[in-house]
């Protein structure tokens, strides 16, 4: 299983990770269409935190023993067979119990349609997640664990 590791020393706070994440999770996967044509616009599942000179990008850590999976009151949050944590939007009701227990604050509220939790899905269609692949300064890296 792989993990995405942020490196705040080299993060320049450009937020390209957010943009490429949004595009990857848009319908068209086209940067222009995703921003101009798709309404509602999809959400980035990675967040850049920034304060003064410090910045880093953060997305779901795909915890081994994920608190959000244990706490999910509907069963929507689950560990997929590939070890990533996924959210079944069909069963999510937006109670935000996952937000209550995620120690990283890595789950976003998707208020667009059904009020569902939105989080990093590790880009199932890509070899390397979009945020990592498009970081200009290797402030997001992929490491192998276990």
């Amino acid at each position: 299983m792989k993990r995405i590791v942020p490196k705040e020393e080299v993060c320049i706070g450009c937020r390209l990770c957010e943009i490429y994440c949004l595009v990857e999770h848009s319908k068209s996967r086209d940067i222009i269409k995703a921003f101009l044509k798709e309404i509602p616009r999809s959400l980035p599942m990675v967040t850049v935190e920034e304060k003064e000179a410090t910045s880093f990008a953060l997305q779901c850590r795909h915890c081994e023993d994920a608190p959000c999976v244990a706490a999910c009151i509907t069963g929507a949050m689950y560990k997929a067979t590939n070890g990533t944590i996924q959210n079944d939007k069909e069963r999510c009701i937006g109670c935000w119990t996952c937000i209550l227990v995620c120690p990283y604050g890595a789950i976003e509220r998707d208020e667009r349609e059904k009020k569902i939790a939105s989080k990093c899905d590790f880009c199932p269609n890509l070899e390397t997640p979009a945020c990592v692949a498009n970081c200009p300064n290797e402030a997001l890296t992929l490491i192998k664990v276990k």
Partner: protein
Amino acid sequence: MKMPEYVIIGNSAAAIGAIEAIRKKDKEAGITLISDEPYHTYSRPLITYFLANKVTWQQMLYRPKGFYRQNKIETKLGQKVTKIEAKKKEVVLENGEKISFNKLLIATGGKPFIPPIKGLDKKGVFTFTTFDDAKKTQKFLPEVKKAVVLGGGLIGLKLAEALAQKWIEVTVVELADRVLSLILDEAASQLVELVFIENKVKFITGQSVKEIIGNEKVKGVILDNGDKISCELVIIAIGVIPRTKLAQEAGIRVDRGIIVDEFQKTNVKDIYAAGDVTEAYDLILKTHRPIPILPNAYLQGQVAGLNMAGKSATYPGSLSMNSVTFFGYPVISVGLTSLTAESSDNGFQVLTKKKFAQRIYRKLVLKDDCVQGFISAGNVDRSGIITNLIKEKVKVSKFKKKLIEEPLGLIVLPKNLREKFLKLGS
């Protein structure tokens, strides 16, 4: 039949937590699951969403359809356990069948508390804790224009929300002077009440129902102060109490709930208990008490399951915590919350941030520089960061003020702490 290694009574969060844990360690040994509810495991909190037609039965399944098959579970659904023979290591079902076990888990959850009120037997009086309750109530709704919900706690309010969404005139009667008094402070209660009032739900606080009136069918209720409210439906949602009868009769130690140690073991060998039926160690109040919330039920079930399968695991204790939305308005409450700034003596400190116009409120209760509880209303984003600080007993004196600011983020934590949490460098 071959004797199953494990027998589990219950088919909800605690039971599922146990099954998933057992199967991590023991892929083969027989597991028999018994539940008096005749359904596939479902999400209990969704029953009010079902009532409001917000979810279908398919969407209520707590685990996917093939769950029992994949986990090689022998199920006995719709069958009640009437007795646990602790010495003989067997459970007895209503139909007389006996099932022996090597290890037993009692995950029988809670049952509604019903106060002694006159007129409970009338048509139109319901409790609301099971899918059957939801179906029965739903069937009855065509006859209902007005409803009274008895109890302004979480279940009562979720019910009031669902009924209001079905265009029923709802009055919530609550004995305390405000709603959600167990998990919120006055300011947050007020914000929640506001949302309900805008959605045409009425509240009567400081009152209880003395009598339910009507002939065969409910026609209304009479309050302690003599006031009468007319309605066709009364739902009792005062609270749930641990369903301990089986355990008690089997000689298992029970106080308010089943008493378990940190391994989720009862005082009887090879019998474990988890979930709403137990008393949990409250990490903040440092006492044992029932804390009937789903995340804890699942985690306790998990710890029980691991121990039953021979792997030592301990349950650190529970935080009382809730995240809930009402008509889309989100509220989170963790730990000790109802301490006010004025009454903050005994070394407690209270920090609050109010933006009432935007309906945003955050409150932090601290002692010895550690967060003991917090409330987030209106904007709950990234609240888990604070929950984690409570669990990890982190000294927050250097950055506590930032914890009530928006936006909340890991960036407000000192770098070393952030790196520790993110497990960087390890």
